[in-house]
């Protein structure tokens, strides 16, 4: 499979994502600069990595969401191509209109940087087919603006269509305010597009691919990508 990792000024997780894709899929991704207007021919997966694109100026992801390359990313998504946005990448996806809603300042106003349990809400998507539905995984979170909100109608639609990818939970998979690190509505940690080919998530699965650095619960997400196929609607 061919992967492209988009690099914006201020991206800083591109190296971690590249390692994770290499480890999970066995293929070497290419970096694409934000000012480019085209993705490499035959790209199957586009990844928007974490970091602080444009210093989080204006709103997190706002300026990157309007970068040249995003037109090509939108066209790729419209063709059914896979797009993964992690952390700042998720913020860029909502700012660019590829996913609905907004990521607001964490409700406690603090940057949270810690390990966090997530519940895998479904295991039949191109991003999660190596997990099991309801599986609890432990990955890292590191963000100041991860408080997902959307209007009532949008949230209702996301829930009705099964488009919540991951929820914050405790080690037993229980959700509730105690385990929610940022005030995110319905404990949402990640969501899919209507075609399940775009995933945005605040946590960092790419950091948990090697037992040397604390766990491997994130690796299955990258191994899942090998199938490369969007979920049949």
């Amino acid at each position: 499979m061919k992967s492209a990792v988009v690099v914006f000024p201020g991206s800083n997780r591109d190296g971690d994502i590249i390692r994770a894709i290499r480890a999970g899929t066995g293929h070497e991704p290419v970096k694409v600069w934000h000012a480019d207007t085209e993705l490499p021919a035959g790209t199957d997966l586009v990844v928007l990595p974490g970091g602080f694109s444009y210093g989080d100026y204006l709103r997190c992801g706002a300026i990157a969401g309007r970068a040249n390359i995003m037109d090509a990313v939108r066209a790729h998504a419209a063709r059914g191509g896979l797009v993964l946005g992690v952390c700042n990448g998720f913020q860029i996806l909502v700012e660019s209109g590829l996913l609905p809603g907004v990521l607001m300042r964490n409700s406690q106003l603090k940057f949270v940087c810690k390990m966090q349990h997530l519940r895998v809400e479904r295991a039949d998507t191109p991003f999660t087919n190596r997990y099991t539905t309801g599986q609890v995984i432990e990955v890292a979170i590191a963000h100041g603006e991860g408080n997902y909100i959307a209007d009532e109608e949008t949230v209702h639609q996301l829930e009705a269509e099964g488009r919540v990818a991951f929820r914050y939970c405790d080690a037993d998979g229980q959700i509730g305010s105690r385990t929610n690190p940022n005030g995110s509505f319905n404990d949402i940690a990640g969501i899919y597009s209507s075609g399940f080919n775009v995933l945005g998530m605040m946590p960092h699965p790419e950091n948990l691919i090697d037992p040397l650095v604390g766990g491997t619960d994130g690796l299955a997400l990258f191994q899942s990508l090998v199938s490369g196929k969007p979920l049949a609607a």
Partner: protein
Amino acid sequence: MKARVTVTLKTGVLDPQGKAIEGALKSLGIDGVDSVRQGKVFDIELAGADKAAAEATLQAACEKLLANTVIENYRVEITG
């Protein structure tokens, strides 16, 4: 031509920063503050002297970048 664009959070959108500022005002003993909502102000200088064209430019700027209309309202004023 000069203009001021004000971007504010829509009613009902939780504003944790505004809440924190509200709390800080109370702790400073500044009484009589019911609530605080934080927003952004952009002072913009425009080329040209046509007011209608300037307003159209600013509206496009707001819709495309300055405001996230999912959660924010904006107001455009030509100031001079």
